[in-house]
């Protein structure tokens, strides 16, 4: 068997490990959500697990860890913009428009 084929087999096995990790962490997210913890804790835990799962997808399935520097820089800038957008809205001063009400 050529070394190329062996490398591909190794890569294939790595994808299966990532798949197993993603399934396990999906089950974990749902299990934790059923525990009656404070909302703030639930949000932090759920998002932390989602970020971990997302980083597995990006790193391995999208082979981001082997990408060229230009892609790493591009996505770093995107990440900064993304976080900036969410955090500026979260920490910024805003108010509910006059007359708006919550409809359950």
């Amino acid at each position, binding site marked *: 068997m050529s070394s190329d*084929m062996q490398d*591909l087999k190794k*890569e*294939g096995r790595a*994808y*299966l490990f*990532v*798949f197993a990790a*993603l*399934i396990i962490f*999906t*089950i974990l*997210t*749902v299990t934790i*959500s059923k525990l009656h913890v404070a*909302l703030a804790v*639930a*949000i932090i835990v*759920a*998002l932390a*697990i*989602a970020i971990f*799962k*997302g980083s597995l*997808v*990006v790193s391995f*399935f*999208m082979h981001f860890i082997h990408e*060229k520097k*230009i*892609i790493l820089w*591009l*996505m770093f*800038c*995107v990440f900064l*913009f*993304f976080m900036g*957008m*969410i955090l500026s*809205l*979260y920490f910024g001063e*805003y*108010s*509910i428009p006059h007359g708006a*009400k*919550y*409809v*359950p």
Partner: protein
Amino acid sequence: MDMPYIVKPREDTGLFNAKLGIWLFLSSEVMLFGALFSSYVVLRVGSVGWPHGASILSVPIGMFNTVVLITSSVTMVYAWLSLRAKKFGQFKMHLAFTILLALTFLVVKSFEYGAKFEHHLFPKTSAYLAIYFTLTGLHAIHVIGGIIVNSYFLFPGSKMWQTDPERFINRIEIAGLYWHFVDLVWIFLFPVLYLL
């Protein structure tokens, strides 16, 4: 005249054209979904009350769809791996499975939507449902886009394997990057909309 760098990478960036193109496209997609996630934060923080996702949506169904999309990401990456191993038959099988799983996701989603409409729960009903339908609807459109692209590569587009295999492998890699992004978005949508 052939366009340069459609197969071989450029000397300056180290990337072939489509690779740089898809990452730029995905960057814009991050900002698109980012804007809607920000809207979710603003609506949720600004609301007097916010329903728990599980009180309106079915968590087992959402979890099933999460597993379906994660599995489709694996079959997609295996389709690319099969081509690199020069196993065209396996490539076709993996890509067909990816499309089948994507269709499964959409069928389940349509049943979910149908159940909500039957209970008179529409986007206009509440801020939660408005952002739920917007985010999942936009995501479903992306799934449909992925099905169209992958179906093209499974049937008419696969002829390129005979004429220009290296370029075809690159095309599947690009389609895969898009598909994994669709999976990535759902990984965040599921806890945000169903579990919190």
